[in-house]
């Protein structure tokens, strides 16, 4: 009885903590792409699975790839997907729906940028179905990170109080229950059923890209994670093709050394794993128009029409492998 009396306040605290946390998560965390994408790769098998960052999210149209290659395709790329996230997404997919081939998009900024945003990873973890992979992912990310983000994931969105109403509406809707893509359509960009982000050609952000000094010595963690991804695919017997999506010519001209160094780095990594590397950024491609009008910003996020043309070129190159 004494022990029960002692533990009671602690138990009450824990229950209330979990409850309030649950409510805050519901209210503050918006409906985001990873929820749909992770559910898709956990429940469907694809011959080709595209993984990577926001660049491939907009640049690669799985429908066009499919119709050219004859292989089913899904675009599981999303912004803030670092190599470690890619690893766990693939591990999650392979639990029961192993993909036939991986098209891994390499954005040098993600290797150079050591500052992984744990809040985003935390969301990826949250979206996964309970499994040993989810536990491993959580352990890999959470132990080194602030305990508040690990235990209270809503703090990544604590400033977004005016989004609460919309969040709660979506979470009561059919789209939420069926992992629908309708809430992502905001008139300027929308996500397709195959996972591509289609950006309207009217969209353009002229801000110059924020490219850090390319110094691979300082981002060993990200490089190690990338190698873990490639070794995992090798062990599972899944072929990999590494792709760097095209960039505007003016960005390439302004940062030639950066993309030169990035190309060299990935060339070496791909060679060491005996993997094909298709780099459409480094020297451009004569089949593609790299004028700025094809992009929604100088970083390289493609408009939908340009993305379709690029996807056709990529599919043709994949067919020759």
């Amino acid at each position, binding site marked *: 009885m004494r022990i029960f009396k002692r533990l009671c*306040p602690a138990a009450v605290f824990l229950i209330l903590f979990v409850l309030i946390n649950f409510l805050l998560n519901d209210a503050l965390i918006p409906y985001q792409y990873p929820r749909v994408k992770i559910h898709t790769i956990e429940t469907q098998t694809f011959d080709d699975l595209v993984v990577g960052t926001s660049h491939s999210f907009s640049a690669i149209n799985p429908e066009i790839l499919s119709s050219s290659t004859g292989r089913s395709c899904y675009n599981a790329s999303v912004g803030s997907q670092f190599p470690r996230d890619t690893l766990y997404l693939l591990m999650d997919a392979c639990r029961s729906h192993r993909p036939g081939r991986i098209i891994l998009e390499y954005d040098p900024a993600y290797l150079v940028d050591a500052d992984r945003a744990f809040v985003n990873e935390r969301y990826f973890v949250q979206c996964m179905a309970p499994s040993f992979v989810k536990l491993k992912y959580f352990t890999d990310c959470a132990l*080194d990170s*602030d305990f508040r983000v690990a235990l209270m994931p809503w703090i990544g969105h604590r400033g977004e109080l005016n989004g609460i109403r919309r969040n709660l509406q979506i979470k009561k809707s059919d789209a939420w229950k069926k992992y629908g893509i309708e809430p992502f359509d905001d008139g300027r960009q929308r996500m397709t059923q195959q996972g591509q982000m289609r950006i309207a050609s009217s969209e353009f952000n002229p801000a110059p890209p924020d490219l850090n000094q390319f110094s691979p010595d300082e981002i060993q963690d990200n490089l190690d994670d990338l190698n873990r991804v490639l070794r995992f695919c090798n062990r599972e017997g899944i072929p990999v093709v590494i792709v760097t999506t095209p960039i505007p010519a003016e960005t390439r001209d302004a940062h030639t050394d950066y993309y030169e160094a990035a190309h060299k780095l990935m060339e070496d990594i791909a060679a060491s794993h005996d993997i094909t590397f298709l780099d459409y950024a480094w020297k451009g491609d004569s089949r593609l128009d790299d004028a700025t009008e094809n992009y929604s910003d100088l970083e390289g996020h493609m408009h939908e029409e340009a993305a379709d043309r690029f996807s056709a070129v990529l599919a043709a190159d994949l067919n020759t492998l």
Partner: protein
Amino acid sequence: MLSFVSLGFILFFLLCFAGYYLLPGKMQWIWLLAFSWLYYLLAAGPGLIIFLIYSTAVTWCGGLFAERGFKAAVPVTLLLDFGMLAALKYTNFLVLNLNTIFGTHLSIRTLFLPLGISFYTFQTAGYLLDVTWKRCKAERNFFRYALFVSFFPQIMQGPIGRYDRLSSSLYTAHSFDVNRFQRGLIRILWGFFKKMLIADYAAQYVNTIFDPASAFYAYGIFGVLMYSAELYADFSGGIDIVLGAAEILGITLDENFRQPFFATSITDFWHRWHITLGTWMKDYLFIPLTLSTWMGRFGKWCRKHLGKTTGRAMPVCVANIIVFLVVGIWHGPAWHFIVYGLYNGLIIAVSGLLAKPYRTWKKALHINDKSNAFHLFQIIRTFILVNISWYFDCSETLGQAFRMMRASLHAPFFSVTFVNPEAPGQCLLHFATILSGCAVVFLISILRERNIDVRGRILSLPVSSRVVLLLMFVFILGMLGCYNDFGGFIYANF
């Protein structure tokens, strides 16, 4: 890795705590040693633990030899112990200065600094001297001694412990005590409060202003005030977590802070700030230095040539300046740290020399030095002097410190949104959080200065109120607390 604010550390500590109270009393210290070494392996990496073991072994042996009367034990051990610290921390500084002065071209190498080396080196040296001066007996059991050296809550940023005091609680059996657990927990949460609501936000201002290439270097006065908030909240917050964690395990560590900004003089400040460093310097450097033979001869010379009053104070002044020179060097291998130390040392030395004249002047001016007004004057004066010293502590070079001090005299008015002009609302919120946090700390400090047991008062509230308070507190840390994915503490790099 395993920063105090990480989930990993919390789980690590919970595991330690659970096993600790499930084990029989005799095994508890062994469990702590295992966790302390494990903590060091995880936090610092397997390569660096050899340095910790090295210092442990060298000073343990040194203590045993010193107790047996081997005269060489102390100098040899101190050389080996401090020598390692000097080699790792100060070699590059020495090389750079030799190159500058003598035009040599010696190369510098990237040297790693083992976690906590500045703290455990001093702690082990203190043990050796205590044994030599018969203040405590040498510890015969290597592993018991190893726990004293590596006890994980204090390894990263102190407090610098004394063997005679620590051994009374470190090795004894402890049974779980709810009250002690709650007190420790409150202390840990208080540390998180200071770190997350004050230190991390203030750091953004300090880093922006004191960046060597900063366009805002004229905001020095605001910068040092923010640094006062940041350094105190970060360091004392970290120490609160350390002491709270130790308290939960039934172990009493020495206090390191005692409302330092209520100090009435620089001397008093160093009795309230980083207390264990100050007492270490006093007991192991200042006093032996002052009482040494050659200092005695110097004192005689001073009395002969400078008169009795100045003569008796001079050895103490010189010793004091030397001690603060060492304090400056302890902070880091750079000239601005040395000047930081000397600045403090000189102020104390001069005020010591002028103690008698001060008394005469105060009498002549009819100043009542027991009045509240004078007390307030002393506090404000000390606060200003301390903030000036931060120019030297915070800048990366001496040149930068002086440049900023000059520019501070012509500081323009500015809005606090300069640190992130694209998000002014956020800046204002963060700044308001700093001010509110400081206000809370100030109130608690006043209560603590009057020896009011704040934690006791909280624990006397009904259980339901305490549960609600705890929930509110945790969610305030989430809602308002600064977060980033690094969570490092300033003094964890020493």
